[in-house]
């Protein structure tokens, strides 16, 4: 931990301030460090937020493994895999956009921002198709939920308990739903970043919003990296 972070502001007040420097910070460095530190802490709260769900998932997966396997087998692993790849690509385009800002390469920055949002929308689109399938199959928990006569993959002739499968689907929809909600928020942030970038607000010296927006996006990607094997790949082998 740095001992004291506020630089001795010998001349901070006399300097020509960068227009983005807020009044209560001594230096742009201090401001940037504060912003990224704040974002990392926020991501820490997000980890604990999803952590409660992971905890519930862990407990019920241990209890109702066979039923979870049956329910997991009913979701489309290809879609999930494609979506994982889409998000990974979007993470690449995010870092390239930041790189573009560092290089003062406006076309790269804006192009990559657009591409990121395109990937994000693709992800949500695919997710929407998956949700539609589940809806048609009556696998959405609630009054019309139906999971009768679904075999447990490794035990032919053994039908999954519909109540326990419903718990899987409840967790599936809440986890992926909250993840998708984070994606929507991310798209909102990136729209704003795109406008800022378009207006030429970002320079190699100052592009903190781009960086902390990127941190958020990568975090959402990491959540999905865990959701994919946990939800889609329970007991998949024949």
């Amino acid at each position, binding site marked *: 931990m740095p001992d*004291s972070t506020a630089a001795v502001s010998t001349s901070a007040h006399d300097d020509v301030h960068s227009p983005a420097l807020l009044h209560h910070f001594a230096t742009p460095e201090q401001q940037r460090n504060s912003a990224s530190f704040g974002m990392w802490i926020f991501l820490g709260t997000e980890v604990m937020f999803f952590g409660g769900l992971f905890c519930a998932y862990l407990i019920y997966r241990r209890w109702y493994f066979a039923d979870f396997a049956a329910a997991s087998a009913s979701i489309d692993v290809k879609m999930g895999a494609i979506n994982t790849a889409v998000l990974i690509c979007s993470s690449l385009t995010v870092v390239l956009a930041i790189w573009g800002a560092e290089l003062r390469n406006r076309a790269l920055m804006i192009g990559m921002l657009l591409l990121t949002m395109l990937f994000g929308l693709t992800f949500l689109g695919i997710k929407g198709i998956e949700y539609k399938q589940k809806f048609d199959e009556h696998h959405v928990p609630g009054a019309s939920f139906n999971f009768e006569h679904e075999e447990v993959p490794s035990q032919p002739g053994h039908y999954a308990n519909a109540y326990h499968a419903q718990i899987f689907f409840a967790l599936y929809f809440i986890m992926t739903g909250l993840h998708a909600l984070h994606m929507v928020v991310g798209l909102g942030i990136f729209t704003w970043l795109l406008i800022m970038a378009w207006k030429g607000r970002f320079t190699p010296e100052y592009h903190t919003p781009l960086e902390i927006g990127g941190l958020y996006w990568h975090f959402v990607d990491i959540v999905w990296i865990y959701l994919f094997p946990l939800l889609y790949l329970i007991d998949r082998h024949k």
Partner: protein
Amino acid sequence: MATATVPQIERENYLNKEYGIGSWLLTTDHKRIALLYLISITFFFFIGGFYALLIRLELLTPAGDLVQADTYNKIFTMHGQVMVFFFLIPSIPAVLGNFLIPIMVGAKDLAFPRINLLSWYIYIVAGILMMHCMLTGGVDTGWTFYTPFSTAFSNTKVIEAGLAIFVSGFSSILTGLNFVVTIHRMRAPGMTWSRLPLFVWSHYATSIIQILGTPVIAITLVLVVAERALHLGIFDPRLGGDPLLFQHLFWFYSHPAVYIMILPSMGVVSEIIPCFSRKRIFGYSFVALSSIAIAVFGFLVWAHHMFVAGISVYAALVFSILSYAVAVPSAVKVFNWTATLYKGSIHYDAPMLYAFGFVGLFTIGGLTGLFLSALGIDMHVHDTYFVIAHFHYIMVGGALMGYLGGMHFWWPKISGKLYPEGWARLAALVVFLGFNLTFFPQFILGYLGMPRRYHQYPPEFQVLNVLSTAGASVLAVGYLMPMIYFLWSMRYGKPAPNNPWNAAGLEWTIQSPPTTFNFPEQPVVTWEAYNYDEIDTGHKQEVQVAG
């Protein structure tokens, strides 16, 4: 002490810089936001207090004759929810912490002033949701929302209350986040970690809990709301769920939440005791690190709320032994405060009286915690009035004493006016006596076996309940007094000098009330914390100006 030299004519400060509603509602000044919080939490404190009085009135007689059973259940539920989530959790951090932390570390503001304002608005939205919930029928689940009662059986506004508390959580998270970043990134030159006031250390520990604990209650409430609305089965045993999972997730936050309430009070007391004993605090680094230890160990003990709930006996063993681990740093703090008095030069101003009260009540509250984490005794006293008495000793005796002590200590800085010292000493005494009269009989009631949340009770418990109710009315008077004389002093109080207590700390080097940006120039800290020897021997701390 308070040897107030008559101060200067009205100077520009954060209070009179701008006028008008807009200049308050859109302010990003941490001091103004602290006052906004002060007004809002005082409002909720009186709502919660009103419910408390209704509870005590109902329990005056064994029969449930004042209100209906359903009404009573709603009253104690909303008493708990309002007091915990809308008063105690924001109380010291959002008011005193908000006001003081930037000044104590030598910054112009918190790291994210706009997020600070946002957190107040989130609190207000949550408060409006809670008020709406209360006014349209209320909720009767107990503040603990235990499933499956809350998800499948209660006929009241569980979803609204859940949402209100969910929203208020974000306010708490953002405050904690702001504090941590400020403490790490905004310290003035020379303000090293070993020179930080202990108030800042304890808020750092509090913030860790707010940041890492609150999201878990948020997601738990999301699950409760979803379960109630859609019957998913996650917490409903009829659908394969486990109600104990809810309790695990709930207490993972709600146990550390107790430390969100008590740690800031400990910070306040760690400021007051050195000031009024004119001494460095005894064992600075142990007091500082014990705050962090409490925050970390606080996360390891939650299932001691579940010893009789049907968890495995082995898990009960683990959680019992860990509960004792968290008691050690609390004990260390009490010993250090006491040792600080040794060979001091002790003054009996109102803040010090509150600090004495805090140490006494916290000692009793903490020691009875040992009873509850002893597995064999918890079997008997769990969910009885023993538990009620214990956590009120911590959360009211401890947290509220610290809050009032801090309000008195920093009131001259906040308002620029001196409060009437005689009244304040009287109020401290009334609160202390009223509190003990209210809650000590409840320990006995609990051991006798009176269960909590009882609308009517067997007649042999009546004498103690009457004592408790009598105490509650004394306590109410004790709480109203500071409210009245603080308001009175805003208009009629003597103007406060910059440092009425001759206290150490950056906040006392600036004018009362401070200017909007706190410091005329970036301060540079060259002295250790609590340098009362230097102050009293005439080597006054002076703010060096950099450059």
